[in-house]
């Protein structure tokens, strides 16, 4: 299991890094899906099969398809790819990378002080739903409203 975890983690990191350096947007999207699926595996390993499923179906599936549709609608071709390449200069990367490096260093610094092991316990749909429709029912309602608002506004915005 440990191996699976580290393997999935490596895939996730690599494919994510590939997303942000890609110039071809469709390729990038594919890498992103890969990364999301890798994370879904990690979820599974950590004992959250329900989350893993949702990650695969909703995230890697539905949301990414949404992206794909839009990319197709925008019809970004070779021209965009050239443009992307011309934007990819070194100095664009310097400041964000340093920033991110510091951030990461701090995170690692903080996290390395935890010396705790976790033993994955399977927490299935039942427990999650009991919580969702128990104490968190208001949050669910709110989420539904949010989705409705997203739906309405997306419809409105995308209209000609």
């Amino acid at each position, binding site marked *: 299991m440990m191996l699976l975890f580290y393997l999935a983690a490596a895939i996730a990191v690599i494919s994510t890094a590939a997303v942000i350096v890609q110039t071809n947007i469709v390729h990038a999207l594919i890498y992103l899906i890969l990364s999301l699926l890798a994370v879904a595996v990690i979820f599974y390993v950590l004992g959250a099969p329900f989350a893993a499923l949702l990650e695969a179906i909703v995230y890697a599936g539905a949301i990414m398809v949404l992206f794909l549709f839009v990319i197709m609608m925008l019809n970004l071709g070779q021209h965009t790819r050239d443009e992307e390449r011309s934007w990819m200069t070194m100095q664009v990367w310097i400041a964000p990378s340093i*920033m991110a490096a510091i*951030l990461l260093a701090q995170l690692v610094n903080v996290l390395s002080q935890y010396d705790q092991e976790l033993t994955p316990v399977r927490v299935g749909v039942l427990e999650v739903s009991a919580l969702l429709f128990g104490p968190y029912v208001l949050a669910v309602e709110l989420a539904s409203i949010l989705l409705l608002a997203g739906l309405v506004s997306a419809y409105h915005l995308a209209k000609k």
Partner: protein
Amino acid sequence: MLDLIWLLPTFSLLGFLSLVLTAGTLPKRIAAIIGAGSVGLSFAVAVIIAIQFLGSGEEYFVKEVWTWMSVGSLNAGFSFYLDGLSLTMMLVITGIGFLIHLYATGYMDDDPGFSRFFAYMNLFVAAMLMLVLGDNLILLYLGWEGVGLCSYLLIGFWYTNPENGYAARKAFVVTRVGDTSMAIGLFLLFAQLGTLNIQDLMYAAETQWAVGSGLAVAVSLLILGGAVGKSAQLPLQTWLPDAMAGPTPISALIHAATMVTAGVYLVARTHILFELAPTVQLLVAWIGLITLLMAGFTALTQSDIKRILAYSTMSQIGYMFLALGVGAWSASVFHLMTHAFFKALLFLASGTVILSLHHEQNIFKMGGVRKQLPVSFWSFLIGSLALTAFPFTSGYFSKDEILLAALELDGPGLWLWMGGVLGAFFTGLYTFRLFFVVFFGDNKGHEPTQEVGGWNMSWPLFVLMVGALLAGFIGLPLDAVFGGHGEEEHDVSALIHGIMIAAPLLGIGIAYLFYYSKTFSVDKLMASPLAKSLHKFWFSGWGMDALYNWLFVYPFLWLARINKDDLVDKLYAFVVVLSRAAHAMIVKTQTGYLRWYALSVATGLVLILTLGVLL
């Protein structure tokens, strides 16, 4: 009838109201009847009241009409106080006031502001009556400010000329300086003695303050400030000559007979305070003396007929102050009364001259008009004689008393007396200089065809002539007011009397030699540069105007000009500049680039985390 004393100012006030509310729509005749008639009615009432009061033998009479304000321990009523002093003033104001009103109906006949003129005049009389009849200092202050206002309005009566407006404002502001000093005096009196009723105050001061105590000195100095402002004495005398910009009846009524003597009245009214502060009282005498001499010199150099009379008024009020200063309260009031007669006479006569010569006021452009203007000539002669204290005219008696009283004073008495005699000499000189230049010699351009004015202008002159001649024989009922040392037999040598009679006569004689017979030439005298500069100096009223301009007016104007936009506002403008600058700085961070904003958020995050890690 005494209860009806409130009618006195009411008549004039009603006259004022009816003239103001009709706003010039009344026919001239009716306006004249209202204007002069209301004062005439007041005079009639005043005479009846005077007879009753004197007949009753009471020392004083108080009538409260209504409570004006009553706040805590302050209780001031609209109440009238009648005693010998206010009786005298009341009769002078209404009597001479009536004559001048009557004269003015002729003098102002062709003026478009006829009814406005009489409205102001009536208001003046009402205010002046409040001043002398008020039984507390606040009511007196009401009249005091009221007459100042009317003086302002009437000096600037011909408002199209900005110079008149300037003169009017100068008069108001300069006297207001004095008024403020007086107001502070009132505050001090109230704070110390807890009342503003004049009689209570005098009693309280007499019983609570020692002679020469600091409070008495302070209070009497402050009140003196008010008095010198109103009476045009040093150092607040500069407004009076300019005040001649008003119509001549105004000069007669306000700036000769009544308002300018209010200062004398005030000091006489509060004489107990001055007796408690002998140093201040002596100061009063010196102020009077210096003013009378300075004004005498200046009068000698003036060429405007009304300005000469104005300086002579200052000089005569100087005599009154001198009298006050040496404690001759009755003599002072006596001179006030006689002065009212002969100075009103002189002003009104000069008004006739001016009007007959088509508003010419320069005496050197007049000359030889005695035949054409007989009434004026005789009026002027009698008035001048009274003014110079020619024996047995009214002025003689009053001035005589003042000088003798001064002589009797220990210490500086002799000096004061000598100054007074010198002043009398100058009075003779400048008065008859004016007289000879105007009425004798050759005519210089203005040929009057006939003397203007009907009965309403000449009758007042006749009455005043009689008054100027005979008022000296009137005995004023002042003994009760000033504690009985009114008329005293002065036991002095014939030499003193001789000198006092001779001094003005000498002045007249010199004037005769210079300006009538031309034995001596003024031009020759004026040839030397010293005389020229001296002449210029005296002509400008001893340079006091220039001095005050440099000391007060110019600095004030300068301050006003440089700070027109309000320095404090600039302070807030600085706040605005500061926040604008800060805005300009911060706005630079708003690049509009999304990535820049994201980077800022990230930087902030990193910084906060760094802080969290480090701490």
